[in-house]
């Protein structure tokens, strides 16, 4: 007699997978860390998303010294409409955070975002998308800045990966 395992792994049985959704909408926050990635993120943000929110820059008060956490962490994300949003609040209401950078800029910004992620136990994915003029040294510089903070660090050769990744993540 056919085993239960053999029977249930047929194509026919696979068609009986329950058709109810198995997850709720995710809140993904995408933050561009430099000017070049801001234009990429801006473009990607125009596609239809499930609720992903996009930010094109981060500003912070100078007394948010490295290592500042909790109450002391004062930084603002600029969304596409140009409005300022509190970094810590945005991170707190997310499922995970994606930062995008083109070259070695934004080191201080990423450490602030990482602090906010640590504060709320959110995981941080970092994406390096080199621009046409980015040098290898700049890429490796970006990686060095991002490495201590990201659970997943990706160097992608093309800007189309931003949207491919966000789609795959149901952002």
């Amino acid at each position, binding site marked *: 007699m056919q085993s239960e395992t053999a029977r249930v792994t047929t194509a026919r049985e*696979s068609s009986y997978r329950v058709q109810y959704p198995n997850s709720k909408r995710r809140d993904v926050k995408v933050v561009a860390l430099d000017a070049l990635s801001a234009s990429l993120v801006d473009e990607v943000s125009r596609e239809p998303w499930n609720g992903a929110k996009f930010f094109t820059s981060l500003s912070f008060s100078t007394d948010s010294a490295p290592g500042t956490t909790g109450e002391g962490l004062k930084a603002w994300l600029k969304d596409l409409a140009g409005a300022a949003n509190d970094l810590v609040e945005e991170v707190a209401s997310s499922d*995970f955070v994606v930062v995008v950078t083109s070259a070695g800029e934004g080191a201080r910004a990423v450490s602030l975002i990482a602090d906010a992620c640590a504060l709320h136990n959110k995981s941080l994915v970092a994406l390096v998308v080199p621009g046409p003029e980015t040098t290898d040294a700049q890429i490796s510089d970006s*990686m*060095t800045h991002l490495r201590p903070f990201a659970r*997943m*660090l990706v160097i992608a050769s093309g800007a189309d990966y931003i949207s491919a990744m966000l789609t*795959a*993540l149901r952002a």
Partner: protein
Amino acid sequence: MLKKEQNEYLTQTGPGTPMGDLFRCYWMPALLSEELPEPDCAPVRVKLLGERLLAFRDSEGRLGLIDEFCAHRGVSLWFARNEECGLRCPYHGWKFDVNGQCVDVPSEPAESGYAKKVKLKAYPLIEKGGVLWTYMGPPEKQPPEPEFEFCTVPLNQTFSSKRIQESNWLQAMEGGIDSSHVSFLHRGDLANDPLFKGAAGNKYNLGDLSPVFEIAESDGGLLIGARRNAEDEQYYWRITPWVMPCYTGVPPRGDHPMHGHFWVPIDDESCWAWSYDYHPTRPLTDGEVAAMKDGKGIHVKYVPGTYRPLANKDNDYLMNREAQKAGRTFSGIEGIGMQDASLQESMGPICDRTKENLVGTDNGIIMARHRLMRAAKALVEKGVIPPGVNPEHHKVRQAALLLPRAASYTEGAKEALIAKKGVRQTSV
């Protein structure tokens, strides 16, 4: 998650499909040399990329891979007589050589020349590293021979096996680049398997269960780095190469042979999981070869006389709930190969990726799918030769090493990731 159309795009490899065209750009493992051991031995049925073929070795030792069915009235040539440099169909005696050329139609006068007009489709079949490789694409685009290190070292340094997997190729291959499952599914095996145990690096795997990942594109595919904390301000890195479309390497442990896989589509609902094991600088020991033949490491035990795993879906993979409860195995299934295969087959013949919920650490899989789709599209629309065809792309090595915390693995491990003749692997 993939959209339904994307899932179909990536999982269908039959003739005329975009991924089918992509696979037909590469040399692929088709059979083990042992399957065609001598001239005029029995022919072997082969199904690859949704095409039914027949492999044989003729009286002069030449290899052929041809359409399985006789051009006369469609009989399977598996029944043929392998004699005097060709396969003779037992029905009416038509005879075909290794190039598929019909060389004799007994009912017609030889002088008529009719046989010359009949030719079965044939693909080249070459022998390298104990493996018979084929290329199923357009003859004018046939690339140079494969240069993966496991098939270029002397034969006493390399061992390959294959097992049939009853699932689509993609879910099998994705297991090969999914480094984050190792700390769960295979955690019982590091300490016990003769082909893994004893490596200094194992303690880092067991000591830090939440590795951090870095993914970089390489010329031929991807380099997937997983790092764990180690002593003295260092990280323990394990780097998995993926060469398009379906070659993966497992980072080494100590001086154990290095291993990895090829995931070759048979049709859309089954694939061959090839497992290679080799040492770049020394012969495999008798003990190592015996362990590999006994199904240890990434190899499996077989149903006698077949390449079907002994633990398979018909016997519930010999599920052992007691071993699972006691923690000797995490899933209750014995052996790394079957731990993977059992779960991948359980997804169904073609995994429905519209329902999955990927997370950040799945970026290796996301990127591999993205590169495959991008390459297939460029090939179909513009004829661009995909990554991984150039044999230079094959000369990549898996590596395991300690690096200072500030170092990047793509820089720090640069040399370690290049296959160099006579140079030992980089491993802890």
